[in-house]
């Protein structure tokens, strides 16, 4: 393999710096004692302490976490089923439409998904609120889950399933005893992706939410429109830290699981 040239190294470093510097600057500013951006007032955790007293913000964070938990779990179940259908069921009537409904939401502009969901809820006169956001997020996230689990199922060693069936297991038993444990890492990481997508979503939630269900992104958005504030810097830094730790932990766990768990389980 040709070795990396100096140009390659430079582009890579510049690319990584471009991706991380803005977030780093944000975190540094969240510790600025001064309210003014231009003035460095020394290090301080003042703005973090301020957050603890911001009840509407904490409420919004709690609502967002609950929505993300429920919709990620529902999306994981539905998306895994969808992936099994796509990979294991061969050709059936309506497969093309099914596949289209899985792939289209991946790239569909959120404004359109949000608008169409809202019009559905109005047409069948459901009051908008917590549960309508859950339904919307589940629908969006299940497509991402389906694609991730699908690619894992395709790599799958079919002889394991065939062996189980030859030994008299029913398709359902085979799925639970053989397939499910082997695709578990993919399912776990897609749950996390679904969780992150839900926690992050502003546009779809804005369309489908109702009174009493203001999510954290909606709250942040309304503050951010007014300009930069040190409190917002602090909120955002906390969210970055939580997500960063979770993702790194998850990837380390999957690495360990892949290295140790796979041979033991088979």
């Amino acid at each position, binding site marked *: 393999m*040709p*070795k*990396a*040239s100096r*140009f*390659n*190294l430079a*582009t*890579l470093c510049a*690319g990584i710096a*471009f*991706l991380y510097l803005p*977030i780093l*600057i944000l975190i540094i500013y969240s510790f600025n004692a001064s309210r003014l*951006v*231009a003035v460095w007032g020394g290090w301080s955790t003042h703005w973090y302490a301020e957050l603890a007293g911001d009840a509407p913000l904490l409420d919004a964070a709690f609502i967002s976490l609950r929505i993300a938990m429920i919709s990620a779990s529902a999306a994981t179940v*539905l998306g895994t*089923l969808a992936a099994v*259908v796509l990979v294991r*069921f061969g*050709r059936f009537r309506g497969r093309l439409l*099914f596949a289209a409904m*899985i*792939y*289209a*939401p*991946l*790239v*569909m*502009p*959120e*404004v*359109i998904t949000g*608008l*169409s969901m809202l*019009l*559905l809820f*109005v047409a069948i006169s459901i009051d908008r609120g917590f549960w309508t956001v859950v339904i919307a997020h*589940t*629908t969006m996230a*299940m497509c991402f889950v*389906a*694609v991730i689990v699908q*690619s894992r199922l*395709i790599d799958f060693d079919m002889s394991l399933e065939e062996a189980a069936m030859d030994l008299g297991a029913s*398709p*359902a038993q085979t799925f639970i005893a053989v397939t499910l444990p082997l695709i578990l890492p993919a399912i776990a990481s897609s749950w996390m992706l679904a969780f*992150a997508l839900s*926690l992050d979503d*502003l*546009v779809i939630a804005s369309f489908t939410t109702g009174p009493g269900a203001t999510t954290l*992104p909606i709250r942040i958005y309304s503050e*951010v*429109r007014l300009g*930069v504030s040190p409190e917002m*810097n602090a909120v*955002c830094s906390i*969210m*970055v830290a939580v997500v*960063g730790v979770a993702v790194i932990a998850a990837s380390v766990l999957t690495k360990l699981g892949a290295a140790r768990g796979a041979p033991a389980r088979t």
Partner: protein
Amino acid sequence: MTTRPQRSFLAKLVVRIPYAWLAAFFLVPFLIVLKISLSQTAIAQPPYTPVFEISGGLHGIAQFFAGLSLGNYAFLGTDPLYFLSYVKSLEIGAFSTLLLLVIGYPIAYAMTRMPRQLQPILALLVILPFWTSFLIRIYAWINILQHDGPLNQLLLALHIVREPPVWLSTDTAVYIGIVYSYLPFMVLPLYATLEKLDETLLEAAADLGCPRWKTFWLVILPLSAPGVIAGALLCFIPIVGEFVIPDLLGGSRTSMIGQTIWTEFFANKDWPTASAVAVVLVCFLVTPIVVFQHQTMRGIERD
């Protein structure tokens, strides 16, 4: 291919649950958008004439079709605001996809040149910002680009500029925000195809005396075409409908179509017009979406 199996009740259920969910919450809503885009604006709650009265029987169906009108679409044609908004969105979508390719390609290529054991870590580093909230990443740029923000401080300190330039509320800020947010979507598909590239082809080209730039142009670039197409579509389609980035970083003059739908809907409460704008946007995006689906399905089934 598996042979057509005997479907048990359970197997049918496995198909029907996700199918029904997607039909109910993805397909049906679209049909409703289509219907409402064809109805008249009514000053009521909800602000449009009813969708469908099944109780009316045959007469109701006749009334349903009689009630449809292309008025909202005709209205889009009369106001240049909508036309300009579509043009602006497609222009920003196309130009930023090109920018992303030019910036993302060298990064993806450089990743494949790194030692094997380092590559998964680099891929994780590229994807990690995608996991942090979209809104936060845009907000981080508001911090940087504001009038007395770090970028202007740096530029003034280095004597590159005398007066702090205005960044926020400009097209430049929108482009920066888009490139920043979508870079992982461009780099990862490119990396995935470049990584599978057969090294012996490059060696063969080198042995036959082909200069490196020519190898790149004649061998590497054509072979990475699937990645280029996947990355470009993965970026272009959502960028055209982008709302948050132009809303927070762009000026009042940069109105992209996502913002137009948002304003029609939330500020003007004109649901039929918002629906018509959305339907026309989907018409623009239908070709790239179909190509994207085709590519993804082929990509997944080939692997």
